């Protein structure tokens, strides 16, 4: 670890020298502490090592990051932004950007984003997700689509070719599921949340042709949703233990500890799976776009400027400077060095020779391929988090077995959706 640290520090020093020259013109008159409410991310934790660099850059400001798990982070950012606004920078994601933007809780990013930090360099998919109503609202910290990741050794041993369609996938999962050997067919997300179990369920829903809304009318309560739920529940029979109430962490943990044969999950999984430091099965992993007709869940998380806490233009500019610095090329290069695959967002970094050297040329190709089937699976509206979270609770009940009537659950959700739309008028 120390060797990597000295390497990173020397790169940091080199960058400091170079940024010192180019950013003199942008040095702001900031002071005080910029408060950031975020999710635990290795990239953000890495930033904390460079507080002095930011202090010099901003002319005296420091920053403090509070970390909360995804569900809590969503609840808390919303509560804070809508009431007292103590945080200067919010970590928001594709699901709640519509809400935050339309409620005026975050400022349009480009007004305060220094030009030389090159926003256009970010992956186009992530830029798209960060845009609502024609404006950009956050700078990406993580994002991507879905990839199907599988254990080459297990598939070869069973004589199965990597599945290209959903039917092949389900059959393969069943065949590869051998609990007495400690191998499970797959690992799904059972934990409630619009970004948890609902997220994994939506590719099925969209893949079967489902839609959330037609204008203001909910249209999801139909056979596509029922079929999607039935398929999802069926797959849960072959899902690793702990996944019934687990989320991304549990699914990824199960795969990287070698207990799972195949997995369709967000792209950062791949980086973790092929990294020997975090995966027991590095070197036995293959990856492909998700089997047809599943769509990949396009997503992105990033940092946005809070409106309430930054009362004047100067403080907004300071927050903007922090957001830009936190997602700058230099900091992403540091994350690449540290092997933080999931924290890379810039096209320049992902097409750099260093990237190809660390992750192999195939990965770049797979990412490009899956980009073609990545879609927006959720309802792009300020009320999405509420609707998604409610469905997440019902889905969790169906998964754990405290409820068994899928249609009844969907009807309940339908009532809730109509109520939601009515309340927002």
């Amino acid at each position, binding site marked *: 670890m120390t060797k990597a640290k000295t390497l990173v520090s020397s790169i940091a020093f080199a960058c400091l020298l170079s940024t010192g020259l180019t950013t003199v013109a942008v040095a702001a008159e900031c002071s005080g502490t910029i408060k950031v*409410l975020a999710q635990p991310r290795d990239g953000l934790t890495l930033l904390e090592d460079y507080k002095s660099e930011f202090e010099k850059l901003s002319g005296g400001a420091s920053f403090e990051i*509070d*970390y*909360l798990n995804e569900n809590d982070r969503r609840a808390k950012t919303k*509560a804070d932004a809508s009431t007292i606004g103590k945080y200067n920078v919010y970590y928001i994601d594709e699901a709640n950007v519509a809400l935050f933007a339309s409620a005026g809780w975050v400022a349009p990013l480009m007004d305060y984003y220094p030009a030389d930090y090159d926003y256009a360099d970010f992956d186009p998919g992530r830029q798209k997700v960060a845009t609502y109503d024609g404006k950009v609202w956050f700078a990406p910290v993580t994002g991507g689509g879905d990839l199907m990741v599988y254990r080459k050794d297990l598939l070869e041993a069973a004589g199965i070719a990597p599945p290209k369609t959903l039917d092949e996938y389900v059959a393969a999962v069943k065949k590869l599921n051998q609990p007495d050997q400690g191998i499970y067919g797959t690992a799904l997300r059972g934990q409630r949340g619009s970004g948890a179990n609902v997220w994994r369920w939506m590719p099925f829903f969209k893949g079967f042709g489902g839609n959330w809304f037609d204008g203001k009318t909910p249209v999801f309560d139909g056979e596509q949703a029922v079929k999607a739920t039935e398929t999802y529940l069926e797959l849960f029979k072959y899902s690793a233990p702990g996944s019934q109430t687990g*989320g991304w962490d549990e699914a990824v943990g199960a795969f990287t500890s070698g207990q799972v044969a195949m997995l369709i999950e967000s792209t950062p999984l791949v980086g973790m799976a092929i990294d020997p430091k975090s995966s027991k099965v590095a070197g036995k992993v293959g990856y492909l776009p998700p089997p047809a007709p599943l769509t990949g869940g396009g997503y992105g998380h990033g940092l946005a400027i809070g409106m309430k806490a930054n009362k004047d233009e100067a403080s907004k500019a300071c927050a903007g400077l922090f957001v830009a610095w936190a997602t700058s090329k230099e900091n992403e290069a540091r994350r690449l060095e540290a092997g933080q695959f999931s924290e890379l967002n810039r096209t320049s970094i992902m097409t750099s020779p260093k990237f190809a050297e660390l992750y192999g040329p195939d990965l770049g190709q797979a990412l490009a391929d899956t980009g073609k089937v990545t879609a927006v699976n959720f309802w792009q509206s300020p009320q999405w988090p509420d609707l998604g979270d409610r469905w997440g609770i019902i889905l969790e009940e169906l998964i754990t077995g405290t409820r068994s009537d899928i249609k009844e659950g969907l009807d309940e959700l339908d009532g809730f959706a109509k109520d939601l739309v009515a309340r927002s008028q």
Partner: protein
Amino acid sequence: MTAHTLGRLVGRLILGLAAFSAVFPMFWTALNAFKNRVDIVTPTPLFLFEPTLDNFAYVLGRESVFAGLVNSLLISGAAVLIGAVLGLPAAYAIARYPNRWSRDIQFFVLSLRFLPPVAIAIPLMVIWLDFGFYDTRLSMIVTYLLLTLATIIWLSVPAFARVPKEVEEAARVDGYGPYAIFFLIALPIALRSLIGAVAFAFVLVWNEFLIALMLTTSDAKTLPIVASELTQLGRDVPWGILNASVVLLSIPPLLFIGVLSGMLNSAFKRKTQ
């Protein structure tokens, strides 16, 4: 006779198990606070390992933990102090000057102690938001005052009632005024139990969670809130750090265990007189 001794043996065994279950979980947590993560996430729990102070260093070094500690100390301390200054005299008045409202006052005070916290937290949250005092130490101290006042009064009334009337009578005969009797006679005599009551109130607000969760967001977060945020991080759970933060959170109340035990003893001693 053998049945009796066998019964005693079984009884002792059960008590031993109970005592073990009382302290082992905390001990296990404390033990794990000294482990590196790799020693914790093993399929077989380890008792022998290479200890490290990294977890404690991390927890004590986090600004949020330090801030939480300071907040807890200031908020709990102030709420208990004010509660004692106002509550002890009130308890004395209730104990020594009963009137037709004493019963109702005691009922009222006790009922406050038993309000569901969520029931007062929700309106208080809205009130503090509307007045602009949300997430401040001041609003927390004022809110906790409700708990400390009610608890201290509730526990101190019996303590003052136990002060022998003859001593107070003698002092009155000697010319002491009612205030003097309170400060110079009653207070010192009941001191042990009163300290227990105050300690109980302190532990109560130190451990308080729901109200703090709803009334703070970043500035006035108390230590239980900070500790729970650390335990709910989710990804790549840093078990050693979590264990260390829980140990840190639990130390202050445990320091009071001697005081509280003494209070229990004195509360029941009177019955044998």
